[in-house]
């Protein structure tokens, strides 16, 4: 990958933050939702065990 790709005609300080911010936000949202789901499943398992 050559240097001009990263420099993007001098617009790199606008382009890369846009991509990083978008992908980072999507990644964080994905991790958060997955963790919440696992937490809920774990709680349900515990409650079902207690009930039995």
């Amino acid at each position, binding site marked *: 990958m050559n240097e001009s790709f990263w420099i*993007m005609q001098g617009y790199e300080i*606008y382009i890369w*933050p*846009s991509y990083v911010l978008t992908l980072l936000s999507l990644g964080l*949202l994905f991790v958060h939702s997955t963790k*919440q789901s696992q937490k809920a499943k774990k709680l349900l398992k515990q409650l079902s065990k207690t009930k039995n």
Partner: protein
Amino acid sequence: MFDWLANPNRFNRITEKIQPCILFITIITLISGLYFGLFDSPKDYQQGDAVRIMYVHVPSAWLASFLYFSLAISCVFYLVWKHPLADLVSSSIAPIGALFSALTLVTGSLWGKPMWGTWWVWDARLTSMLVLFFFYLGYILLSNAFERKIDGSKTASVLAIVGLINLPIVKFSVDWWHTLHQPASIIKIGGPSIDDKMLLPLILMIFALSFFSLYLIVLNVKTKLIEKKCEALLLKSNLEEISKTG
């Protein structure tokens, strides 16, 4: 049809099968969209490489509007037909839509600075998108503001439906008023006016973010269903304890 979909067990059974497919499509379209957007698409003759911001900005804006429409429709189902899953769907859509509208504002700002020479203008398109973001925030805040969950859901649903009026303003603001923001170049009479090599990554990114949203909405609804089940179990065991001691 809607009654058929309203059954939580059936919803769980169907989504269990399609969730991996949705995630797979998301990953494939995201990787190819990023590849074509960053490596293969041409520079704009006026904007140069700065046009590449379009591949994250436009899909975010499209999703912010589409998700709001879905949120409002879901609220109608909740208020009018008392659809059991509708409130869970609305509350699952809201944070994702809020994130996309925030991303639209930030990436738009990052695109605006080198092109317009300013981070922000009180232009009709930008302002209506900011209002859309506030509607999302309002929905989230209102649905959690009441002691009884049902009161919050009802009030927030009314706000979401009122906010529908903002969607045509977001879409047509560039036609109704003189704005700094460029007019529509994809969904317009006469077809898209952008080059096919630019249209391909744009469509791929729109697909990627749409499938990503769908995956998260399904996941969040399922989580909320489990949480409801946990609440019911806790309530039942508490009642049993009270009856024993009583």
